[in-house]
């Protein structure tokens, strides 16, 4: 497998996963805004920050209203983190490897971008948003399914899975981070009922609510939710699951010593953490560390396998 191609496959998967999770993130926040009492609503600023969308590009004016924020997050191609930018990059990467991925997959990538572009207006409006984001999410899922079901499960597929899982791990931590951003808990003791609603919405945004219920039969509680999202090996969007996927891919690839050496401490770190002890500030710091760990793994994969000329 060509190094350049491996790199393009990896990025294709990352960008598609990023678009999907950005849609999920916008969904969580939209729901949070509806559920919380007016005075405690976090607004959109934390999301913009969490997506890293505040650096690079023109940025947003401080007093931006909801429509402009949503335009910025969904369809502004000057914002490298917008859904449309991610899908555009996915398409560009897909285009350069259309000889590698199955034709149906390329058609899906192409279609995903074109539809997301065409319907962007719906995503910005309050009424059409849920459907729009839903179509981005299900489009990305369909693509994942097409690839899993039709692509040769060879080295290229390993790079695809690694890209997807590293991005998913990163975005899962970011979605959890939305909850650390507003610091509701410390500020208002009488907001405890809302606290659970919010964790539920985080679970739901990761399509993890039902699965959580099936594994953990207690009611929604913060430590349990965190344990589930960080450590549950059987849940595909949980951090530990995703890094184990990366480990499995690396095991089948050549020259994997260095990348594995970078990955394993990260697996240990997440397993050893005690979610009950992660209060807001510590949680935020913990997430930061995991994200740095992911960046380290990404860099060593690039150095080992990709084209650096």
């Amino acid at each position, binding site marked *: 497998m*060509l*190094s*350049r191609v491996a790199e393009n496959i990896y990025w294709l998967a990352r960008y598609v996963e990023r678009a999907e999770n950005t849609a999920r993130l916008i969904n969580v926040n939209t729901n949070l805004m509806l559920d919380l009492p007016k005075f405690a609503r976090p607004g959109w600023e934390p999301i913009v920050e969490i997506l890293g969308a505040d650096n690079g590009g023109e940025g947003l004016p401080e007093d931006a209203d909801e429509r402009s924020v949503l335009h910025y997050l969904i369809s502004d191609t000057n914002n490298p983190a917008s859904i449309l930018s991610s899908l555009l990059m996915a398409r560009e990467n897909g285009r*350069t490897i*259309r*000889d*590698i991925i199955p034709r149906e997959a390329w058609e899906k990538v192409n*279609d995903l971008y074109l539809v997301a572009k065409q319907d962007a207006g719906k995503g910005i409006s309050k009424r059409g948003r849920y459907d729009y984001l839903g179509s981005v999410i299900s489009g990305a899922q369909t693509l994942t399914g097409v690839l899993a079901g039709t692509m040769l499960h060879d080295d290229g597929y390993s790079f695809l899975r690694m890209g997807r899982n590293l991005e998913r791990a990163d975005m899962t931590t970011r979605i959890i981070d939305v909850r650390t951003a507003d610091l509701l808990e410390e500020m208002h003791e009488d907001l405890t009922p809302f606290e659970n609603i919010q964790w539920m919405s985080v679970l739901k945004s990761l399509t993890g609510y039902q699965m959580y219920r099936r594994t953990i039969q207690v009611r929604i509680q913060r430590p349990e939710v965190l344990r589930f999202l960080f450590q549950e090996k059987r849940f595909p969007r949980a951090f530990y699951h995703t890094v184990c996927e990366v480990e499995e891919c690396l095991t089948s690839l050549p*020259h994997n010593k260095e990348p594995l050496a970078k990955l394993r401490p990260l697996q240990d770190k997440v397993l050893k953490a005690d979610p009950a002890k992660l209060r807001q500030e510590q949680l935020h710091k913990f997430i930061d560390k995991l994200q740095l760990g992911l960046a380290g793994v990404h860099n060593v994969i690039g150095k080992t396998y990709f084209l650096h000329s």
Partner: protein
Amino acid sequence: MAIRWGSYKSKDFYDELIRVAGKPRPVANTLCRYLSDLKDRDIEEYKTAAELAIQVMGITFTVYSEEEGSIDRAWPFDIIPRVIPRSEWKQIEKGLVQRVKALNLFIDDLYHKQQIVKDKVFPAELLQDSVNFRKQCVGVKPPKGIWAHICGSDLVRDKDGTVYVLEDNLRVPSGVSYMLENRLVMKRVFPDLFEESNILPVDDYPSQLHDMLTAMSPRKVKQPEIVVLTPGIYNSAYFEHAYLAQQMGAELVEGRDLVVEKDIVYMRTISGLSRVDVIYRRIDDLFLDPAGFGTDSMLGVPGLLKAWKAGNVALVNAPGAGVADDKVVYSYVPEIIKYYLGEEPKIPNVPTYRCFNKKERDHVIANIDKLVIKPANESGGYGMLIGPQASKKERDHFVRLIRRDPRNYIGQPLLALSTAPTLVGNRVEPRHLDLRPFILSSGDHTYVTTGGLTRVALRKGSTVVNSSQGGGSKDTWIMED
């Protein structure tokens, strides 16, 4: 009923489908009947279905524009096919095989003994001034003496029905992927027509191409490593490069993926360097190996030319093959065929005036308002003058250009290019077209595509069919007559 053949008129031109008003040619009978049975909303539906298929399949070509950088455009496609009877196509096929055979002998001769020059059939000064003659290739012996493995020859039909070769593309001819995709689109849109008529398939091309490339491998291994070398995603034909690589199961590489060590070409892979046997290159000679050709471009693969000369890798087409892809050389093809094969050309050339010859130049200048003037080495319809349609200022400009560099220009009569019914809204109007078949040569075997790519000038009255200049395409059906 939307399409009425009775009111379709292609005055003064040969029409590919309709013989005289209301009367289709025999081979197009079924098709024309089918089309005239369609209601407005059927046509609308089919058009939309075709557009959708094109969009979904991501069939695009890239156009570079100053304002927007590189943009992708869907390639305009007309759903009414062009039909050619099989008996006629068989003759054309023979003519193309003959032509490409002679051209390969000619190129090989130019890089070795130059017997044709010594015998004064081909003028020495033309060779000296040829911008596509590569002195670096002199004495090189590519396998089986084949230089132009892939040739795309443009055919046009004049008013009386005669088919001419308008030009031969021997460097990196493109368009074959559109031929293949057009057929896929048509099968999605008109399955019933394909079921009831006998339309010869075109899908064989990628495997023929693969076989030819495999045959060129210097290492006799079962599965030689074949790569398609592309300039990258910003090239207008990138879609095609990726498409062909995919269809053949070959790697699609860019210059930076390749490296030459000790005259052996490798590609960089995730597990290290891996040897390459055959390169189907879709980049021009001069960008192949900047060091080898003495250009200072950063593209390309340093050392590639040397590896090729050492016989360690096959380059398809061979560097230097473009020497015969020159519109002045073109005018000699009938003589070339006679010289090497001792045969009369089976497909005629368009009569061509060579401006380097004083007498012919004077004729061109005196009749510039009746002729088409083309530069020797441009493609894509760039840099040409259509005398009868040009302003006096444009014509004067070309007279100056010809005087300054006579070697670089030819003049040809303006052919009355044939037409075919093309959808304009929900009605049909005649539009001019040409045909580009592709010919593969491996030395042992010559393969001609079944039909080829029909390009159509979508603007009324226009004869410029290039995709970069408002052209579109049609599916080409070779049918039993």
